[in-house]
């Protein structure tokens, strides 16, 4: 009996173990590369068979050591905040304070500051400086009692917090109320009463928008509910308490700092008892600058990149911010239930309409203001000062600056040379000064007849001085491109046109200053103006007027050479009719009245019910389902594709590309020809190179892209590492800082002998690779993290393109030293509504400002062999409802705002790659949109690299939301080349197309070629020479799995043999 029990035990355990190991082996084999990458173990060994004389550092660093780079990065972050912080208010020169002043610093954010965003915008803030410390560094004496209280465990309850799950987060402001603060601080406030600095903080990030319902903000009865972007009761109580102290003479002045990436409501700041206010955005690692700004060591020179509204309920965009369910969707069989996963939104039946068209932000406020002052018909009631707290482009300085000698002269065919002299007229302060330039186009019959929207003023360029000492002058010159004078006419000309009429170029100031100057100029020209309606003053001398004739040919072709054929310029014409509900052929009875200068009185501010209502048509449903994962029809929480909408890819008789024709070419051979010339993407040598790949190689390349591109060792293509984020490299990929990957920091220490056994480890974090050891002699700075810059809104606020380029260079260097050849960024979506959760990643409400700054930054990054994946192209202007949302927008607004932010970084900054958004253009998923990927990005803009989807698991149903896209459609349409996801989930998608689908095979080939091309011209090639050889190896973890397999197999075999023998013996015994 004893042996029987033992035998049974062995048989059962060995069976369970064998089953477990078999399953483990299957799963780990399916995920071999991902596991290896996570564990930092190599699946390939790279051996250099040459004599080592080749210089394989193809992208040179400007720094000798990683420490030098880090110092430069931190310093640059400081400079960004110094130049980007916007002085909103400074009554009676309340600022700057005197060094050594004793100040009381209020607000939990002063001690627990907002450095960046959450999600992909996360930066490493370990070395960041909070506001209290920043002030101390600047030489102020900071109230220690308050610091003790705010940082005590007892006050943890007052810190910002959130409740709910990821996609349903309700953000709570909290804050310590005044009675608690006063009770704890006692007389210390009086003692440190030279100034009270009250820091108000808000946080935002990926996956959620900001609360307009729920939360603990003040409900100002605007229909929006408790408002996260207003102050809450506790914050207001602090302000009231401070005002009382000021009145009692215990504190001298009140300074408010807004520490949020976007705009809070500005009504509170109008309180005359608040002496000064500063917007600093999310401060990144640059917050030392705040103290210097308050002390006057530095002078603010930032300008607002967005309109700061008095009350966000006055912003009509918010009426159509969010998503709604199509009427009639259920009847058409389209599910309207919300997802059960992290994103409780409908992905198939939801829509949003950009009803404002071009009239977004200042384009609305300033245009309606001008029309109000000019007393145009149907303008409605519009008191500017009740609507706008601080306009786009607004920003004070400590010094006083004067503009003089304004001149704008046409030069050549399409350039306008702007010249303006900036003089620092103050006798105390030095500082920089930026000069925006705006254009005002004619709003005449042609525009009215063809539904062309013409804002009062639009930014067309900008420049910034160096630091000007008191009395010093600098003449700024800019070359305006007349292309930005053109309007997109999607109805008649179907292209960019110059309309007949007067064009006013307005130099300097905020958008509101520009409009006032424009009004003055028009008044001088005899136009009727109702001066009583004006807010502020203008200066007609800053306006230069040109008359242009109608022209629909001058900008009919793209400036860039198309990357579809490498030689032609593309005819620019309507590409996105399907995204404009008024032009979409399947619109049914739907129609949208976009905002119109002739009917301002029709603009709704009804935040509850003012949104556009649309009805789903059968064509919409059919087109949406055509993009779903075709194989299963059953995903997530829904019942799958209704029969009537099921489509599958049709077979064709197109011949497949050639495969596995070895020509002895490696990727390193595809950079330069024998004469040292760069090999073009269209060179026939690329065909020879690509013919070497197998179908499986191609499938691998286009199926996997989770923060990387796949390796194909047979042709010497290394894995690339691509990582977030938009404000500098951050996130989980850098647990060992600059040593996390085989970047320059790692390679240098290997060469120095400070890293042992640090040979080439492909696609892995070498630090955790068994056998790799870093000696104590290695630079400890290598473990530090990359520089996280202030949020992009602050960078935009600098209005300094050169600075953006320098920031780009630092990010590029961080990639070079940290082993990253791709950046999931920069973020170029639009600040459409202040309630977008992800404001921290994006630049502005203005597409040109975002585009020009983005172009400079992209160029800086690309110079270091790091390819940007500018994201999220496009219309990803909200978070909670971003998945699959059907977005309706007219083509003029799309091109002149939302796509311009992506266009300029490609055409002016050489941005290589793009990340497609989760959104749809009309019914077409951005990642499967031929018009966007092929016709626009590659055709018109000449984008050279690849398009990656956004997180693929959010699109194919893996996240328990309805699926709405699959990579097959992305590759086939040219809308995307790779998924931001990895095998085996996506790899399987291509399995069944190995025969009979030649068209898809060629699309796969083209996408794979682009992956190869962008890799060849990236720093991923550093360390690879013409004599480098790749050898496949089994990673150590997999060896362990195999050994356990053998052990379990032997045990199982023993158990089975023993059982068999027992049965035989038993039978014999019978």
């Amino acid at each position: 009996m004893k042996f029987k029990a033992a035998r049974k035990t062995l048989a059962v355990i060995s069976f369970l173990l064998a089953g477990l190991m078999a399953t483990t082996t299957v799963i780990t084999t399916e995920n071999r590369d991902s596991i290896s990458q996570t564990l930092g173990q190599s699946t390939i060994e790279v051996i250099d068979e040459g004599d080592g004389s080749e210089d394989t550092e193809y992208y040179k660093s400007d720094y000798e050591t990683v420490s030098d780079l880090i110092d430069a990065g931190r310093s640059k972050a400081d400079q960004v905040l110094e130049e980007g912080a916007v002085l909103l208010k400074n009554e009676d020169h309340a600022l700057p304070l005197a060094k050594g002043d004793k100040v009381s610093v209020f607000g939990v954010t002063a001690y627990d500051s907002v450095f960046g965003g959450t999600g992909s915008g996360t930066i490493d803030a370990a070395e960041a400086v909070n506001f209290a410390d920043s002030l101390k560094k600047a030489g102020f004496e900071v109230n220690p009692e308050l610091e003790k209280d705010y940082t005590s465990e007892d006050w943890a309850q007052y810190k910002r917090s959130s409740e709910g799950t990821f996609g349903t987060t309700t953000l709570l402001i909290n804050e310590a109320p005044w009675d608690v603060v006063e009770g704890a601080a006692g007389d210390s406030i009086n003692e440190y009463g030279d100034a009270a600095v009250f820091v108000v903080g808000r946080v935002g990030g990926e996956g959620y928008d900001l609360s307009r319902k729920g939360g603990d903000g003040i409900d100002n009865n605007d229909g929006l509910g408790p408002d996260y972007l207003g102050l809450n009761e506790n914050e207001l109580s602090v302000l009231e308490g401070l005002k009382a102290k000021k009145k009692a003479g215990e504190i001298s002045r009140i300074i408010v700092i807004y520490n949020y990436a976007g705009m809070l409501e500005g009504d509170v700041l109008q309180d005359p008892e608040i002496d000064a206010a500063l917007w600093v955005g999310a401060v990144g690692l640059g917050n030392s600058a705040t103290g210097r700004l308050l002390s006057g060591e530095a002078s603010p020179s930032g300008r607002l990149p967005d309109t700061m509204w008095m009350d966000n309920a006055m912003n009509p965009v918010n009426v159509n911010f969010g998503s709604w369910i199509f009427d009639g969707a259920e009847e058409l069989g389209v599910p309207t239930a919300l997802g059960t996963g992290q994103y409780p939104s409908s992905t198939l039946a939801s829509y949003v309409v950009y009803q404002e068209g071009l009239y977004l932000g200042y384009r609305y406020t300033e245009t309606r203001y001008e029309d109000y002052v000019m007393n145009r018909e149907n303008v409605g009631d519009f008191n500017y000062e009740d609507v706008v707290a601080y306009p786009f482009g607004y920003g004070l300085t400590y010094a006083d600056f004067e503009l003089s000698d304004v001149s704008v002269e046409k030069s050549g065919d399409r350039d306008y040379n702007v010249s303006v002299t900036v003089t620092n007229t103050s006798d105390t302060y030095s500082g920089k000064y930026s000069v925006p330039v705006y254009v005002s186009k004619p709003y005449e019959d042609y525009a009215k007849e063809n539904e062309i929207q013409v804002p009062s003023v639009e930014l067309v360029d900008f420049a910034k001085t160096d630091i000007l000492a008191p009395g010093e002058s600098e003449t700024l010159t800019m070359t305006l491109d007349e292309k930005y004078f053109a309007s997109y006419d999607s109805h008649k000309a179907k292209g960019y046109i110059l309309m007949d009429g007067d064009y006013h170029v307005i130099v300097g100031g905020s958008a509101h200053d520009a409009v006032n100057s424009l009004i003055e100029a028009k008044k001088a020209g005899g136009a009727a103006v109702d001066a009583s309606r004006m807010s502020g003053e203008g200066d007609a001398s800053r306006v230069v007027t040109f008359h242009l004739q109608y022209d629909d040919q001058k900008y009919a072709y793209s400036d860039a050479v198309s990357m579809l054929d490498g030689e032609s310029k593309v005819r620019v014409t309507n590409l996105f009719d399907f995204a404009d509900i008024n032009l979409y052929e399947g619109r049914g009875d739907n129609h949208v009245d976009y905002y119109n200068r002739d009917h301002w009185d029709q603009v709704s501010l009804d935040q509850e019910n003012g949104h556009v209502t649309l009805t789903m048509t059968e064509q919409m449903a059919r087109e949406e389902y055509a993009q779903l994962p075709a194989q299963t029809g059953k995903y997530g929480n829904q019942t799958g594709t209704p029969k009537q909408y099921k489509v599958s890819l049709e077979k064709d008789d197109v011949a497949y590309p050639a495969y596995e024709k070895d020509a002895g070419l490696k990727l390193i051979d595809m950079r330069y020809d024998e004469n040292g010339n760069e090999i073009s993407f269209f060179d026939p040598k690329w065909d020879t190179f690509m013919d070497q790949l197998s179908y499986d190689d191609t499938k691998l390349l286009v199926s996997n892209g989770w923060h990387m591109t796949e390796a194909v060792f047979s042709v010497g293509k290394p894995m690339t590492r691509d990582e977030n984020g938009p404000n500098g490299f951050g996130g989980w990929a850098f647990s060992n800082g600059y040593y996390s990957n085989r970047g320059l920091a790692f390679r240098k220490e290997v060469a120095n002998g400070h890293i042992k056994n640090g040979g080439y480890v492909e696609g892995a974090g070498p630090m955790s690779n068994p056998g790799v050891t870093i000696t104590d002699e290695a630079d400890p700075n290598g473990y530090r993290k990359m520089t996280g810059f202030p949020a992009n809104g602050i960078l935009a606020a600098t209005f300094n393109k050169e600075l953006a380029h320098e920031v780009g260079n630092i990010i590029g260097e961080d990639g070079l030293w940290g082993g990253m050849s791709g950046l999931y960024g920069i973020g170029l979506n639009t600040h459409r509504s202040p309630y977008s959760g992800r404001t921290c990643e994006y630049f502005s409400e203005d597409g040109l400002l975002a585009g020009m700054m983005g172009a400079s930054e992209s160029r800086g990054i690309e110079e270091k062999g790091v390819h940007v994946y500018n994201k999220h192209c496009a219309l990803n202007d909200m978070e909670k409802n971003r998945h699959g949302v059907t977005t309706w927008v007219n083509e003029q607004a799309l091109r002149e705002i939302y796509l311009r932010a992506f266009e300029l970084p490609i055409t002016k900054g050489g941005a290589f790659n793009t990340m497609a958004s989760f959104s749809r253009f009309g019914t077409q998923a951005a990642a499967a949109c031929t018009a966007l990927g092929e016709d626009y990005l590659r055709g018109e803009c000449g984008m050279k690299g690849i398009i990656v989807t956004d997180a693929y698991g959010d699109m194919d149903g893996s996240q328990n939301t309805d699926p709405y896209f699959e990579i097959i459609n992305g590759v086939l349409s040219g809308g995307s080349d790779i998924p931001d996801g990895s095998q085996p989930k996506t790899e399987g998608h291509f399995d069944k197309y190995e025969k009979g689908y030649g068209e898809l095979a060629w699309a796969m080939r083209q996408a794979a070629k682009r992956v190869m091309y962008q890799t060849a011209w990236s720093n991923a090639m550093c360390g690879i020479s013409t004599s480098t050889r790749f050898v496949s190896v089994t990673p150590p973890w997999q060896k362990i799995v195999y050994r356990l397999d053998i052990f379990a197999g032997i045990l199982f075999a023993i158990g089975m043999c023993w059982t068999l023998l027992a049965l035989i013996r038993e039978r014999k015994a019978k």
Partner: protein
Amino acid sequence: MKKALQNKSPGFRLTLVTMLLSIVTICVYIAIYSSTNYMSWGAVGVMIAGLVLTCVLILTRQYRFAPTALLVGDYMGFLFFAHAIYFYISSVITGIQFSGFPLSFYVNIMFFSLTIALCIACVFLRQTPAAETSSKGGK
């Protein structure tokens, strides 16, 4: 029924209960996962195959092999389930999937675990009454 079970061992009776539980587990699994992409019909197939084999063994009076067949079917079913859902589990554990595991996930795991645990117990329990075994010369 009562008569049929009159001379059966407690182990055999537990095997019948386990078979019943196995059927319930299959139903629960189908109810929870059939409309998702984490469904493995292979899991259902091997579990049903295990149940059918168990029935055949019982009908052919090969009682002592019945729990083994049931265990093989249910355990393999569990492994198929694991293979189908591991991507989801990994995405939750790594934080890619932020929603966490729903109650239904734990319910399903509980049913599988209980079924397999009972199967293992049955393997170790005598399936035939001592007298019957003795009369057949079994040990």
